[in-house]
């Protein structure tokens, strides 16, 4: 299945959740579905999308947070899965699109193409609700359970190594940060 298909099925279910995505193909595909003020695209510092999500989830217990991540990014911050497993914020869903490659930087195979199983790593790291999915149906089933549940969930979705044919956003990086922060502040004061 393709990451874009998963995102297309996920998008209408996001509601008012705060979404943090890693860089490259995932960010572009989410943006192309329609940017929202509740989306933050981490276009560098690979690995830290999940850490940002953890910070949001722990400091905003009344919000629901979704992290959209990739195998390459997660491999750069494997310790973050252990931190996630330790603190287990119930309001966080961590989705990892595993395409077995560093697609946005040349398409070299990543360790997951050679056998590293990120779902097993997440389970071993102490994350309580971890699933591996391979069809859009399974993906949305796991998402629904995660969204309805009351514990942190990690969903590892095996996807093809394909991405968008363009990379362009009409959104400056600091602009995204300013607008994302302001959106959250507006929600906290009831203005969102």
């Amino acid at each position: 299945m393709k990451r874009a298909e998963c995102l297309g099925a996920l998008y209408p279910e996001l509601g008012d959740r705060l979404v943090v995505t890693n860089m490259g193909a995932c960010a572009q595909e989410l943006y192309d579905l329609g940017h929202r003020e509740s989306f933050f695209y981490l276009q560098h510092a690979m690995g830290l999308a999940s850490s940002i999500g953890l910070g949001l989830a722990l400091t905003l217990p009344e919000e629901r947070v979704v992290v959209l991540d990739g195998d390459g990014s997660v491999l750069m911050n494997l310790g973050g899965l252990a931190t996630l497993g330790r603190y287990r914020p119930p309001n966080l869903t961590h989705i990892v699109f595993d395409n077995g490659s560093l697609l946005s930087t040349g398409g070299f195979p990543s360790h997951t193409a050679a056998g590293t199983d990120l779902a097993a790593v997440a389970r071993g790291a102490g994350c309580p609700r971890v699933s591996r999915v391979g069809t859009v149906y399974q993906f949305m089933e796991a998402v629904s359970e995660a969204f309805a549940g009351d514990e942190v969930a990690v969903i590892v979705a095996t996807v093809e190594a394909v991405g968008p044919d363009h990379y362009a956003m009409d959104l400056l990086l600091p602009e995204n940060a300013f607008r994302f922060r302001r959106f959250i502040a507006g929600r906290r004061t009831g203005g969102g």
Partner: protein
Amino acid sequence: MVVVPMTVSRDNSKAIYQGIKAAGIRFLTALPETWLVYLLQLAADDPEMTLVEVAREEEAVGIAAGAYFGGRPNALLMQNHGFLASINGVVSLAMLYRVPLVMLIAHRGHWGEPHPWHTQGGIVTEPVLRALGLPVEHARDPRAVGRQIQEAHTLAWASLSPVALLLTRDLMED
């Protein structure tokens, strides 16, 4: 119970912690190290404080950014080698997106350091911070550190920049 060398200053750790709270900070990300043990124990024992311990210091930059986006004053506690481990996060998340970070950094390997393994990190810490163009101050005096922490928070949020307060041997050891 954690056993620490008797030379780490309990009183000065308390002064630092009081400064953190006086700055309105109720969220800390940290990776423990010897000089920070009493400080982190105070945080762990305080029901008003949320302490998140990371596996690697670069995570703390991401978590702190999340706290900032959520409108929560916060600080990062780490050893200077941890800061070195977190540099790309500081550059490509905090500096790139104009996210303030209040970094309280234990400055090992500097003046008075007897352990050889700390010394390269100790020598490069300030030059690296200055190469990044970040505001840096030294905390040497327990009577001033509380004010310095509040000023670090004020500057970080006004400048939308990481700032570094180096916790020196003068302050951290008896």
